[in-house]
């Protein structure tokens, strides 16, 4: 029987409340506020208290899905296949319609560093300023 708390940061908005994932025998079973932390001071909102609930959720996607035809069904794919598809479609659209034909949405659920990398990729590699994120919606 193993029970420990693992420090993490809430992914639901950009505030940065620190919290602990309660891990019981290798599974996340709950969230606790980090009482020693200065930003959230041991307090969380309703989303923070429930941030663990998607981790082991049966509806969570654990593999990429690809739709081969416009009205076709999604099918499971490998990461290699999915990334190849994204790269070839980005290239095709950019060549045919120009970079401003595409828009890119990033996420408050990822780190600052990942967001930085994302906008850099959009601006420097794709070549458009059409980049935004979900926390502004």
């Amino acid at each position, binding site marked *: *029987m*193993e*029970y*420990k*708390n*693992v*420090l993490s940061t809430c992914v639901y908005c950009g505030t940065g409340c*620190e919290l*602990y994932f*309660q891990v*019981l*025998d290798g599974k996340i*079973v*709950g969230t*606790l*506020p*980090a*009482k*020693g*932390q*200065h930003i*959230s001071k*041991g*307090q*969380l*909102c*309703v989303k923070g*208290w429930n941030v663990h609930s998607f981790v082991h959720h049966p509806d969570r996607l654990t593999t990429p899905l690809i739709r081969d035809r416009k009205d076709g069904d999604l099918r499971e794919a490998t990461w290699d296949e999915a990334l190849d598809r994204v790269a070839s479609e980005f290239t095709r659209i950019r060549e045919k319609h120009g970079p401003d034909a595409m828009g890119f949405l990033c996420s408050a659920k990822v780190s600052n560093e990942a967001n930085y990398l994302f906008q850099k990729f959009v601006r420097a590699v794709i070549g458009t300023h059409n980049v935004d994120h979900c926390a502004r919606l």
Partner: protein
Amino acid sequence: MGEQTTSQRLEQLRDAVRELLDSGNVEGVLALRIVGPGPAPHLFHAGDDLSDLALWPKYQIPKLLDMLLAANPDVRLGVVIRGCEERGLIELAKHNQVDMDRIEWIGLACTAEERDECRCHWPYPSRIDMGEKVEGIADALVKEHADLSLEERMDFWRRQFSRCIKCYACRTACPQCFCESCMLEDDKWVETGVMTPAFPSYHLIRAYHTVGKCVGCMECEKACPAGIPLTVLYKLLHQDAEELFGYVPGASVEDLPPLVIEDL
């Protein structure tokens, strides 16, 4: 004899936890351990490094112990508990949530500083294994509030609860909130999708549900991101319950809760 320093208390705690783990009577001991910016609950096992044991701030230990015991019905566990946590466990035992025979505890007396932060009237367990007993204090906020007129009180709580963001942290943090379905999530009592929750039904439902169980551990108030002094309301209710029914939550595992007419 001067007051114990934090490092002396921690040394005493390490010895007590090590002794309980080495006794072989328990699968592990639930205590606090430094993880990142501060303490977090942790289940220590025999032979573990105890150098990062911690004391404060406290967590909702009775609720966590209840979860661990329920997940592993065959084990006995040790736990480091303060006065409010012992009383919380006693209430959970009376409501058939935990079995005290499966628990071995190390009783920790709170310091004057910890007592003051919790405005606590009873900062020590029934058996003090470590720390030095300090007497409880009357909650100045409760006293101040009790002197207000009925209209002033209503006005006070209307203002306080207007800040509520309906995050359920008071309910989620509370060791005594163990119902499988919660009235506060039932549309019949609390309309879903509406902010802020209707005054005063949401807050009074919760307040009434704490009567006879709340031991004043302050976890709800500390968890409230809106800073609402919830325990002031609960403590006043408990004063009434004590005067009317002579019942003190958590005082003894033998006392019948006030709503139980006879032992069946």
